């Protein structure tokens, strides 16, 4: 008896990723596509890619996609879901997008308990624009706009969006995962599936924060970048579930 252990997801186009070697985007893309296929959602999914490296997400996702302005994913998702409640909506957002320019949209969509799924790619840096400081840049980390290292007195602190959003009553599920090892990748996929299931069940806002390596802008080899996620990033951004109302059935 043969068992299928690998197929190309139907929701993933057969295109070569433009992402750099060791980048987490392509892994995250694939995981989302696998989940969409396995949950049978493809026909009603509408994805919202951001400006940034993943602006070309629509070259890879074989589902309906609507690009939006930087930071506005949660507002656009709100409009889509309100106008078309039968859709399954996900936003795909980076740290500059979700945690800087789009903080207000994110917090308020979450607080309203919009039934949408957010995939938050945290790589601690602005990728496509060339490695500038992000709101999630670590203390002391050198970027093109924090060339002397992020100074807590001048540039403040890495912002923890999962922890902040978990405080809001409209939020159903928040988990922070990473895509830097096979074990973590498997956990990330489970989290993504849960974040879609929460939406299908109409329980409220769900987000998966993915710690994602950016070897190019971190000035590291892919192998070193994957290690750096464990050694440095998880110190500030610990992995785990920050909110899950599905654990107490009917209690919300």
């Amino acid at each position: 008896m043969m068992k299928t252990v690998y197929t190309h997801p139907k929701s993933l186009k057969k295109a070569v990723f433009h992402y750099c070697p060791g980048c987490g985007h392509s892994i995250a893309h694939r995981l989302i596509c696998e989940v969409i296929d396995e949950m049978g959602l493809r026909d009603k999914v509408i994805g919202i890619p951001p400006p940034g490296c993943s602006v070309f997400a629509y070259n890879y996702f074989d589902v309906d996609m609507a690009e939006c302005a930087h930071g506005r994913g949660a507002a656009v998702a709100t409009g889509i879901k309100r106008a078309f409640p039968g859709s399954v909506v996900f936003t795909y957002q980076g740290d500059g997008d979700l945690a800087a320019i789009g903080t207000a949209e994110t917090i308020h969509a979450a607080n309203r308990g919009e039934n949408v799924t957010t995939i938050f790619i945290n790589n601690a840096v602005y990728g496509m624009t060339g490695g500038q400081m992000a709101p999630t840049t670590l203390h002391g980390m050198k970027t093109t706009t924090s060339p002397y290292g992020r100074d807590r007195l001048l540039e403040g602190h890495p912002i923890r969006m999962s922890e902040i959003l978990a405080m809001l009553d409209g939020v159903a599920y928040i988990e922070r995962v990473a895509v830097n090892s096979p074990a973590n990748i498997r956990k990330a996929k489970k989290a993504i599936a849960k974040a879609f299931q929460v939406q299908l069940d109409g329980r409220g806002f769900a987000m998966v924060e993915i710690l994602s390596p950016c070897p190019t802008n971190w000035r590291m080899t892919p192998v070193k970048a994957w290690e750096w996620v464990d050694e440095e990033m998880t110190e500030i951004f610990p992995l785990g579930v920050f909110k899950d109302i599905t654990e107490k059935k009917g209690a919300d």
Partner: protein
Amino acid sequence: MTKVLMDGNSAIGEAAIRAGCQCYFGYPITPQNELTEYMATHLSRRKGCSFVQAESEIAAINMVYGASVVGARTMTSSSSPGISLKQEGISYLAACELPAVIVNMQRGGPGLGSISAAQSDYFQATRGGGHGDYRTIVLGPSSVQELADLTMRAFDLAEKYKIPVIILGDGVLGQMKEPVEFSREAPAVPSVREGALRGCGGHPSRIVKTFTSNPAELEEINWSLFRRYALIKKEETTYETFMLDDARLVVVAYGIAARIAKGAIKNVRAEGLKVGLMRPITLWPFPDEPLREMAKQVKQYLVFEMNMGQMLEDVQLALSGQGETAFYGRPGGVVPTPSEVARVISRLYYQKGLK
């Protein structure tokens, strides 16, 4: 159908619902709050409809974007400072060829300005307003009845040409009450625009996007937009004339200023001055050809606006030197009286020896 007494802001809301508006997204700002409140009361519980008080005007216009992506008739409203915040979203709507209705009940500016009526957002509205090469259809109502009629027309134009449409009203129009009649009944169920994103079941997946790394592709998108704009200009330009037949001087004014000008013209007509009115209803596309045609008969024009002279430039471009233009304006939210404007008209009339 019977007439009802309504304030202008509420009349827009009722007209929007009857035009099939499914989703409204707004943020409070004076002097348009009655519209947001009307939608909260009358749209939010309608079957299949949605109302969201957004966290900002930026969020509201992006919710409009989302609703339009999936084919809903959708609108937002604000007043001048809030409309500035919406420009990002309007640019994206224009780029993605998405229908939407945006109401600007203008107030005095610049900055936080005043909450009194003004017309100082004419440039912003008629020149695109946000970044990039694009236009929106801009409608300039001058009565509560016309607010209702043009709101319905705005939804139809938006759908027909896949373009954002701006209703450029003002604080006075929104606040004043007049009898109004609605020409249609609200649809029982919201319609879904053909070709909207609804998931890829049964057909290949689709993309709504604006970004391209290929300038040639983007150039063609711009050309394509402007071919449509040329068609809109040809098909949809509208204006009203008043007492024009024997006129030696024509006042050009839109919106509430045109209403004031009409009163002024009646005053000076009573004294035997031959003065008429040209009132653009579509501010973009601007009725430049009718004005050029008019210039064969009438050489003297007075542009009257509640700003420092914005539509004035469109009138001068339209006339291309074939007529002489004078300007009278009051900025900052000051609303002149008909007798004040009548004095300006009379002075110009005698100065130019038209008597």
